């Protein structure tokens, strides 16, 4: 396969997956009682466009499935089949199957034919039950040529024996070709309906030098003679309607298709004209599509025609380059600081201006990497729909702040933890309707998801109005597991936080959803790996909520630089509680824990960084250096360092990418003097302290 074809495929799959997501969202919003006609049309257009694209690429299994799906949706659209809950469920299953088929096709792995055949069968069965007229005479199906996927339209020639000639003025909107639909696709589909001729009108073409390749200047007059009803034509034109000015009118008599003239033989003296009227050839199988999956996404693309897709790698490179500029600028500033007048003031002024510009550039690049959190939230309506049905619960999902933006890398990694939290809420939090009613609540529980920006952080809340955590049961379980001593007294907050312990679960029955105790500790670890924190709030009988705080970006961190021996380390500011200069003799040795000191009523362990990293320190006495109190997982640790150097924003360089993973180090950065400083992995160091005391 050529690289070019791969690129076209990639474009098709990308658009198709986006369209399927939009289709799923539209299905979940569909009201069985009073279905929204435009929503059904949009859903139909997705299936139609995926069918077209897959047919064009000879993805026959996908094309065949989407053909059935399209037929089914057409019955809904025409009102011949009612929109019911089972109908919506079946369509949702169809999107799953289609997604799986597309994924398999994309990765060149076998399609799960059994599953797709089952759903296709269900669709056909429902069609037969609800709309017998449409499929009762399969042998009398349309006389038009089968499509590329080997499937034929369902319009029955017997019902419309009389041929009619239609004239269609096809005037694509100015941006029809960018980034989506190609008129040739519409033409090839129309050609399947009957005898077709078209005339191209080039009058609006500008001088060649002024021609914008993404603008469609050509317009067409199409003459189509068919025995099929106008709806069959409209079906094909519908998806393009948002992008094209279409005028369909009945005309008579039928035109005689003009035989194509010998082409490309005009001498320079002859003005080359479009073919007078040419019947369309059989649908081309390898015209370059523009990757459009149409329908919902086409609309979105149309509305968003001022945006472009950019590979994340390019943005990473850009961010990296900006980081290098920041470092170079910082180096220059340090050099100037050591220089002498008279010109140094002017150089310094220039550098200050440069610093301001670089910071703006850095912020602009960061903004480019930001995506709305709705990309992570979008999966939850479906998840809640499916799980609540399976558990016989009534759950209303309320999502707010979906436009809140965060770094794409953070966004990618936050999805799974959110799924864990939502599943927990549905499975353990929200009660069954009868239980809720007995407790004086509404039968339907509420699951809320909220996101907002607070300073340099993004806060995501996931909660419910369910039963809340049963703290007594958690404590009993923790004692039974030996996680808490039989006589230990814990605050409510500390008890609630026990659910983040590995392997901890109070679920009496391990379900498919939860109860294996492998969820919450993984959630916490994932959040911490993102440099974030997680907090649990619960109230018996009122519900629970989890508050996740994440950095806006993984590319930059605000940190405090500290000296240990001859090295400089960066401590992320977000983890720092306090910096102290201990007085002589305040530290004690406790057996089983090691060196500790009293901080705000608690004894906290001290980690001497020179010991952890095997360095020769400038001082070994605690009162001669500084202790940084940092916190993670509700645990505090004092980090002993030689000296505090200052606060600064640093660009994070991955250790794994550039070297290898090192315990206690989360990354590296380059300082203004060109030297490398390592960024401390606070969760890792806190764990290290805990393990040391447990050993």
């Amino acid at each position, binding site marked *: 396969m050529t690289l070019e074809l791969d690129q076209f495929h990639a474009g098709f799959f990308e658009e198709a997956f986006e369209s399927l997501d939009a289709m799923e969202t539209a299905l979940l919003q569909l009201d069985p009682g009073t279905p929204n006609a435009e929503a059904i049309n949009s859903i139909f257009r997705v299936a139609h466009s995926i069918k077209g694209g897959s047919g064009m690429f000879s993805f026959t299994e996908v094309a065949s499935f989407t053909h059935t799906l399209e037929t089914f949706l057409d019955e809904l659209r025409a009102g011949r089949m009612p929109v019911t809950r089972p109908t919506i469920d079946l369509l949702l299953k169809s999107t799953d199957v289609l997604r799986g088929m597309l994924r398999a096709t994309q990765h060149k792995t076998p399609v799960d034919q059994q599953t797709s055949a089952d759903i296709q069968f269900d669709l056909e069965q429902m069609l037969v039950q609800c709309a017998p007229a449409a499929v009762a005479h399969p042998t009398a199906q349309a006389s038009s040529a089968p499509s590329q996927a080997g499937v034929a339209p369902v319009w029955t020639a017997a019902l419309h024996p009389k041929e009619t000639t239609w004239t269609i003025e096809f005037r694509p909107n100015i941006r029809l070709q960018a980034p989506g639909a190609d008129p040739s696709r519409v*033409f090839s589909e129309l050609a399947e309906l009957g005898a077709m001729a078209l005339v191209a009108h080039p009058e609006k073409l500008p*001088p060649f030098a002024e021609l914008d390749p993404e603008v469609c200047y050509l317009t067409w007059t199409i003459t189509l003679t068919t025995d099929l009803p106008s709806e069959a034509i409209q079906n094909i034109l519908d998806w393009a309607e948002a992008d094209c000015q279409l005028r369909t009118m009945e005309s008579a008599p039928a035109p005689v298709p003009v035989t194509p003239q010998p082409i490309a033989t005009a001498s320079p003296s002859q003005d080359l004209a479009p073919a007078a009227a040419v019947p369309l050839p059989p649908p081309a199988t390898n015209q370059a599509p523009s990757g459009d999956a149409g329908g919902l996404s086409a609309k979105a693309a149309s509305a968003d025609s001022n945006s472009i897709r950019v590979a994340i790698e390019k943005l990473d490179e850009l961010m990296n380059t900006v980081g290098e500029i920041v470092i170079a600028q910082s180096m220059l500033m340090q050099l100037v600081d050591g220089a002498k007048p008279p010109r140094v003031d002017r150089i310094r002024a220039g550098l200050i201006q440069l610093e301001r510009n670089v910071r703006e550039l850095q912020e602009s690049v960061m903004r480019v990497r930001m995506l709305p959190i709705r990309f992570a939230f979008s999966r939850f309506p479906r998840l809640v729909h499916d799980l609540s049905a399976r558990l016989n619960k009534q759950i209303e999902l309320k999502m707010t702040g979906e436009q809140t933006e965060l770094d794409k890398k953070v966004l990618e990694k936050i999805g799974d933890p959110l799924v864990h939290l939502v599943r927990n809420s549905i499975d353990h939090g929200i009660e069954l309707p009868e239980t809720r009613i007995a407790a004086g609540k509404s039968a339907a529980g509420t699951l809320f998801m909220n996101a907002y920006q607070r300073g340099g952080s993004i806060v995501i809340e996931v909660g419910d109005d369910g039963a809340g955590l049963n703290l007594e049961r958690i404590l009993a379980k923790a004692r039974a597991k030996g996680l808490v001593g039989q006589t230990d007294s814990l605050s409510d907050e500390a008890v609630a936080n026990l659910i983040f312990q590995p392997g901890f679960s109070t679920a009496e029955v391990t379900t498919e959803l939860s109860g294996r105790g492998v969820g919450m500790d993984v959630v916490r670890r994932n959040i911490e790996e993102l440099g974030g924190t997680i907090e649990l709030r619960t109230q018996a009988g009122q519900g629970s909520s989890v508050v996740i705080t994440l950095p806006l970006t993984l590319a930059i961190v605000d940190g405090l630089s500290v000296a240990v021996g001859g090295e400089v380390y960066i401590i992320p500011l977000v983890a720092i509680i306090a910096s102290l200069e201990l007085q002589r003799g305040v530290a004690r040795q406790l057996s089983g824990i090691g060196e500790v000191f009293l901080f705000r009523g608690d004894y906290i362990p001290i980690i001497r960084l020179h010991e952890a990293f095997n360095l020769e320190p400038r001082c070994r006495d605690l009162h001669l250096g500084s202790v940084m109190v940092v916190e993670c997982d509700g645990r505090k640790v004092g980090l002993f360092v030689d000296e505090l150097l200052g606060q600064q924003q640093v660009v994070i360089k991955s250790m794994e990418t550039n070297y290898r993973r090192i315990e206690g180090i989360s990354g590296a950065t380059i300082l203004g003097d060109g030297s490398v400083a390592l960024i401390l992995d606070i969760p890792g160091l806190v764990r290290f302290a805990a393990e040391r005391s447990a050993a």
Partner: protein
Amino acid sequence: MTASIDSSMANPQTVRLPVSTGIHECPALKQQLLALMDSAEVVVIDVTAVELIDTAALQLLFAFNRERISLSLNTIWQGDSPTFRNAATALGLQLHDSAATDSART
């Protein structure tokens, strides 16, 4: 991939269309064609390799051809590509003789 220009001969200039001649190739193709618009007496456009082509590319080639004719300059369509031929016909555009081998001239 972009179209390549074979300028080994002083005249004519040959533009070889790539396997995939689509909207993404159009900006580069336009620049190549624009450079040849009134500088080359004869421009040969070789379509032999074309396996994928879209409306944007065909419109561009059509506009080039049209303007060359208005300037009384020759454009020769070389080679045969069923994809190219069918796509042009599907859009009602006359560009290339379906039986062309190497001498179809506009």
